């Protein structure tokens, strides 16, 4: 168990229950570790708080996408109706803005939705075909019925034996090191 720090991604422990997972994460963070991540088969309530995750950027990106879609969509229709392809219909004003509202609305929703989804994927750095955690054979259970905690080797406090001991203290099963290749 004496690999050099750069060859391992971290140490991983397994839990059978979301409550145990949250308890473990709280303990590990209380011990001063910061590069900690948890893996679960469904979003666990309270896990983000336990990991100290802050508000994320998805909603801001979504707002910007919506504004771009809405303002861009309206201005585009305005430009088409008044200068690119003006049609005089019974002398009515070219900028017949109430008629542009439905398309403006739809484009606002389209822009915001695309931004929310693509923004979420980009911030999560997905698609990402491979990740060191997949090297752990039991990690296939992370998508069905088991919960995992990983203390990453990038943590300044990281020490293999100590992290393994800490995971034992919080009653993790199958404590394994995660190789980094």
């Amino acid at each position, binding site marked *: 168990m004496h690999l050099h720090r750069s060859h391992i991604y971290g140490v991983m422990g397994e839990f059978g229950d979301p409550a145990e997972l949250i308890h473990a994460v709280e303990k590990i963070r209380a011990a001063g570790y910061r590069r900690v991540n948890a893996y679960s088969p469904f979003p666990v309530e309270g896990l983000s708080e336990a990991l100290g995750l802050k508000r994320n950027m998805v*909603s801001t990106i979504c707002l910007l996408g919506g504004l771009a879609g809405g303002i861009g969509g309206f201005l585009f229709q305005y430009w088409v109706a008044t200068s690119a392809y003006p049609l005089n*219909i019974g002398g009515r004003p070219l900028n017949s803005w109430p008629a542009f509202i439905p398309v403006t609305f739809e484009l606002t929703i389209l822009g915001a939705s695309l931004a*929310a989804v693509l923004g979420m994927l980009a911030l999560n750095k997905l698609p990402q075909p491979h990740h060191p955690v997949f090297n752990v054979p039991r990690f296939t259970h992370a998508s069905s019925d088991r919960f995992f905690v990983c203390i990453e080797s990038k943590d300044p406090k990281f020490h293999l034996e100590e992290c393994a001991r800490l995971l034992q203290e919080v009653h993790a099963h199958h404590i394994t090191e995660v190789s980094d290749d």
Partner: protein
Amino acid sequence: MSAGQPPMDSPEIRRLTPVIGPGHTYGSVTDKISAIVLTRPTSLGWYIGFLIAFSVMGMMTVAIGWLIIKGTGIWGINIPIGWGFAIVNFVWWIGIGHAGTLISAILFLLNQKWRTSINRFAEAMTLFAVACAGIFPLIHTGRPWMAFYMFPYPSTMGLWPQFRSPLIWDVFAVSTYGTVSLMFWFVGLIPDLATLRDRSVKKPMKIIYGMLSMGWRGSARHWHRYQSAYLLLAGLATPLVLSVHTVVSFDFAIAIVPGWHTTIFPPYFVAGAIYSGFAMVLTIAIPLRKAYGLEDFITMRHLDNMAKVMLATGLIVAYGYFIEFFMASYSGNKFDVFLVQQRLHGPYAPFYFALILCNILIPQLLWSFKMRHNVVVLFLMSIVVNIGMWLERFVIVVISLTRDFVPSAWGRYSPTFWDWATFIGTMGMFVTLIFLFVRVLPAISIAEMRELVAETSEDEK
């Protein structure tokens, strides 16, 4: 509901009619749902059903091929009835496509836990219904290869779409709805695709599901953003659902044709869309839970709730019919009065009375608890409502167009063989897609079912 009963979400009611069968764990829901896709052998029934549906879809392909060769003259449409089956079927399908996103988005925002086991296939149904709907206006243009003219693009002719036209609004509404529904469905699928990737044994399956899941690993940091994105999508899809059928109703309401030019159309179309959408969800859910033994996940509580939504939206639709009558009579506009009389006494009166029977009278049986808990009755009722909602669109399109302002512009409409072949063919396409979907993707959201297991086990503590 009688006064003595406890409120709907009280623990007693939840125990009596649970949203998930007892004794399920994270592992058991994962096993049961993923097994349908991964390990369960494909049944003979699936092959037979798929073959029938696929043959019917083949008929659609032939009908559309013949249409492209000969032109829209093979249909029963002619001036003054330019819309006919194509638009009737378009509105019918797009209406059916409303339940999926409604269940996913609005019931999600309202924190209705019972939506969990039906949202996935309802969303799939939405996508397939929108796909069927999209075919009709496309081929109705007569020159479907020119359909890109409807999208704004810098053409060498310097031509731009007419943004004041409801038909262009429709293009934007339906394509936005299709795109957002697809994203909503796919985002919901990502964690389940990862489950399938991790549980599949065969290499090609691992690769396909692996690519589709994009390397999802259930990281807490990912879930954190995922939940934000999902909530935002739900919030965005909610007004979108309401807007789509509103815009579809504008196709009619903006015109000055008697029977179309009314302000009741947007809400009454939206209610009708939800009505027919829930009917179609029941039409699919009832055989699905039977065929795959999913009674633990799609419980009587789900069927009961869907029946109640149908009853409520059906009453709104009935109110819409009443207001159409009332406004026509009260306005004293002789064309509107004449149109109402034509509905009651004209050549298409049998359709109107069949519509009242299917959409208003028969569904009143749903007031009865016994009827709502009889699976066979619910299934038949859902078919009746589907037929009724199709008749509604037929009545709206055909009666108004055949009885315009002056008698010289009156006409008659009857569909031809090719009209029917295209319409029934799209049903084949819809069922084909449903068959493929339940075979290759999890028909119930596994990740959300695990959440439900976690929540129900907390409730019991």
